[in-house]
Structure formats: structure tokens, C-alpha cells
């Protein structure tokens, strides 16, 4: 039973990391139709800024210092995302192939610049000692860092929900995901919502970047690759534009992958691909996605 709990909770922890990457991807695609391959670079920028801050603050990172590094990493990634949106994406709305090429280009440039600066080797991310402890849950000893991943993902989900549900910009975003032309026709500048979504997506990816660096035992320009692929899978399974859908899909994928890997090493990725194929065949709009007109 304790093994079951351990695998389940570590799977949810992994799912939390996928969610942090996927939530922004989902909103950006849902609202703007932008397939953003630069999203991984937001994660990397957040990870490196968080890493730089945590290292600057000292070798023995306390929990408040780590949280600060995570927030600053998120803000830096959000600012970078906003810059990419303003400088590049705004010129390419409705030009999907150009968007894909440009965003792939951005991710390659960011990877090359950071690789040249910091090298591609993993560098240990300074983390609080508490992360290396374990918490007893129903007899299973759960690594403490997993709790941080899950708590962060849940907090961001709640913040995201509150923003979308209770603010005017959230209302504009929800309406824009359905029909952005009509939002404009009501005299509302939907571009403001685009920029907000890019910033929020970048922020979540940046926070995710810091946590992925802890999970991967270090920061490197190459850490984003796998998570970006899983981010896209989560978005497709959860439904384009649905943040709760992304949350459910991310948790599902994290848990299924962990269980599959436990029983047959390496089977996890295969099972996720089968799940993706199944969803595409049975419910192409994803778990909580809407059929587009």
C-alpha cells in the first residue's frame, strides 16, 4: 500500500511540473491560436534567473529565499514572454507557420545563448535542506520537494481560476478564447488580453523552470525539451484553452507514467503516447476542450 501511495504522490508531483508548463501553452493557444514553441525558453529563462538569484543569496538557501527565487524567476520569464509577444508574435497573428518557425527560432537562440554563457552541463540548483527530507503519508515516505511542486501547481491553478473568474481581464480572456473577433467588435482591445496571457503563461513556465531544475538535480539550457513535449501532450489531452483541463490531464499523465515506469522501466512514455492517441480518436477536443466552430 505504501508503494502505491509513494508512486501516486510522486506521479502527482511530476504532473504538477507538467501543469506549470502546460497551463500557459493552453491559454496562449486557446486565446490566440499561437503554437508557441518558445514556451520552453520561458521555462529556461525562469530557471536560470532563479538559479542566479538563489546562488547570489548564498550557499545555504532558506525556504523564503527559494520562494523568492521562484517568484523572481517566474517574473523574469513572464517579462521575457511579454517581450517575445510584443516584438515578434504581434506581427504574426494568423500566420501559423511563421509563428511556429519564429518561436522555434527563439528557443534555439535562447538555448545557444545560455549554453554559451553557462555551458550545457547541469549546475546544482541551491535548494533548502528541507527538500531532501521525506514526509510520512500513510506509511509512504514522500520526498518533501514533491509536496512543494504540488502546492505550487495548486496555488497557481487557484490563482488562475480566480483571475479568470473574478476580474475583467479574466472575463476578456475567457470570451477571447471563444471568439476574439467578437470581443473586439464589442469595443474591447483583445490584444491586452493576449499580452496578459503571454505574461501569465511565461510566469507559470518560469516558476515551473525553477522547480524542474530542482527535480532534475540542476539547471541547464537543455532541461526544457522533455517538459515542452509533455506540455503539448497535456494541452491536447486536457483541451486547448482549458486550464482545469490541463490540470486534470497533467495529473493523469504524471500518475500513469510513474505507475507504468514502476512496473516496466521505460514503459511510461509509451503509455502516455497511447493515452494521447486514444483521446485524439475518441474525444479530439480533449477532456475539457470545446469543439470549435
Amino acid at each position, binding site marked *: 500500500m505504501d508503494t502505491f501511495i509513494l508512486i501516486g504522490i510522486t506521479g502527482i508531483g511530476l504532473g504538477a511540473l507538467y501543469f506549470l508548463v502546460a497551463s500557459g501553452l493552453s491559454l496562449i493557444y486557446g486565446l490566440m491560436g499561437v503554437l508557441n514553441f518558445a514556451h520552453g525558453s520561458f521555462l529556461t529563462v525562469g530557471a536560470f534567473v532563479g538559479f542566479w538569484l538563489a546562488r547570489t543569496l548564498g550557499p545555504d538557501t532558506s525556504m523564503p529565499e527559494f520562494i523568492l527565487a521562484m517568484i523572481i524567476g517566474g517574473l523574469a520569464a513572464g517579462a521575457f514572454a511579454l517581450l517575445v509577444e510584443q516584438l515578434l508574435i504581434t506581427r504574426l497573428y494568423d500566420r501559423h507557420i511563421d509563428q511556429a518557425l519564429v518561436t522555434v527560432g527563439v528557443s534555439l537562440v535562447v538555448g545557444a545563448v545560455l549554453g554559451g554563457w553557462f555551458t550545457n552541463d547541469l549546475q546544482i540548483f541551491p535548494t533548502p535542506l528541507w527538500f531532501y527530507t521525506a514526509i510520512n503519508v500513510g506509511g509512504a515516505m514522500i520526498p518533501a520537494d514533491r509536496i512543494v511542486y504540488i502546492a505550487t501547481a495548486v496555488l497557481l491553478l487557484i490563482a488562475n481560476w480566480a483571475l479568470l473568474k473574478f476580474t475583467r481581464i479574466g*472575463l*476578456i480572456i*475567457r*470570451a477571447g478564447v*471563444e*471568439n476574439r*473577433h*467578437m*470581443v*473586439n*467588435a*464589442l*469595443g*474591447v*482591445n*483583445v490584444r491586452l488580453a493576449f499580452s496578459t496571457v503571454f505574461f501569465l503563461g511565461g510566469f507559470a513556465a518560469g516558476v515551473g523552470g525553477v522547480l524542474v531544475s530542482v527535480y532534475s538535480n540542476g539547471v541547464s539550457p537543455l532541461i526544457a525539451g522533455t517538459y515542452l513535449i509533455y506540455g503539448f501532450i497535456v494541452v491536447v489531452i486536457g483541451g486547448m484553452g482549458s486550464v482545469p483541463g490541463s490540470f486534470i490531464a497533467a495529473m493523469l499523465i504524471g500518475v500513469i507514467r510513474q505507475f507504468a515506469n514502476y512496473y516496466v522501466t521505460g514503459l511510461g512514455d509509451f503509455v502516455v503516447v497511447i493515452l494521447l492517441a486514444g483521446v485524439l480518436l475518441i474525444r479530439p477536443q480533449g477532456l475539457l476542450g*470545446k469543439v470549435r466552430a
Partner: protein
Amino acid sequence: MNALSVKDLHVKINESHILHGVSFEVPTNKVTVLLGRNGVGKSTTLRSIMGFYQGTGSVTLNGKEILGMQTYKIAQSGVAFVPEDREIFASLTVRENLSLASREKDSDAAYKLVYSLFPELDTRAAQQAGSLSGGQQQMVAIARALLNKNEILLVDEPTKGLAPKLVSEVAEVLMKVAEHSTMLLVEQNLSLVKKIAQHVIVMDQGRVVYQGGPENLNDAAWVHQMLGVSGGHK
């Protein structure tokens, strides 16, 4: 005095030339009805005025050029749009649909007017707009347009697909709204058109072929020649 003036408007969509130099005027405080067979470019004309499609020529609102402006700026200049398929936000509640549309700081009077025209929207404020009937969705679409101070209302086939009883309800509302507004209405329902039209424009193959008073609407031969439908009185 004309609220809206369209001159030599050409619009291409995906290389297809849809509007071929459309020119017409919409007089202030009158209901202008844009008529024509299906596919002649009536909806494209309205959507081009709203800035959904890029075009060449000139569209002026009270003398100010609006062609080439972004859609949201055109709407903020005072052009309200009720689209053909309502295009309400299905996942939002009725209240959220209205709140999104409302741009006035003091919107109490506008809400009062809307709820007096459509009392049902008040009782269904918390209901998801996607679960409303076609007629109720049309009410939301019209209500959204009435929440701001507008210079002109562009209304595209408001009775399309509605049951006869709802057609009369929508017609009644449009006539009430028309008492105080400038309206450019695309409508196929000839009996409604006859009741409401004060100025008529007829389009054919992307061009304006008639512009003038509504008298001819009672001439069956004219109606048949212009619109390809039977109507009017011999």
C-alpha cells in the same frame, strides 16, 4: 445629415473580390435596410464596416474616416454590431456577456433600458448563454449592442432562424430601438422590412443597385426584380 457614408468600398477575401465599389449613405436617426439576394455581399459590407475585413475606399462615421481602423476602435467610435449568428459567448453567463460589452462608467440607465426591453435577461442573468434558446440568444446579442452610447447600430439578420412568435418579439424590440437610433439593418423578412424601413439600399453582386425611399417595397414587380422573391402589392 448622414451618420455613415460608404464610398467606393472594395473588399477581397482570400483573393475573391466580394465588394466592387459599394457606395451608400445611412441617414442619421433613420432605419436603413440593406437588401439583396443571398451571397450578394450584405453581411460582408457590415463586417467590413466593423473592420473584420480589410478594404479600400472610404467609410466615414459622422465625417470621420474609420476604414482601416482596428475593430475595437471602430466599436469605441460608436459602431455597435449585432452579428448574423448572434456570436454570443456560450460559456459565459448572460450577466457576463452583458458586462463584457458594457464600456460606460455609469451603466445603470443602459442596463435599465436593456432589462425593460428584455425582462427575461434579468431573470436569466446567471444562466450560461449557450443554454439559452435561439430567441433568447438574439436578445443577448441585441442587448450587448444597446449597453453603450452608439452612433449607429449594424444589425445582421436578427430574425434568421427564429420561430414566427419570436420574430414578432424581435421586430417589436427593433422598432422600439429604432425610435432613438440610427440603424443599418440587413434583413430578409420582408414584412418586418416594410414596417421598419425608412431608407432602402439594394445590393446585387457586390454592388449597390438601388438607394432611396421604402415606397418601392409595396411594388411586387420591383421587389421580384430586385430581390427575386414575391412580395409587395400589385
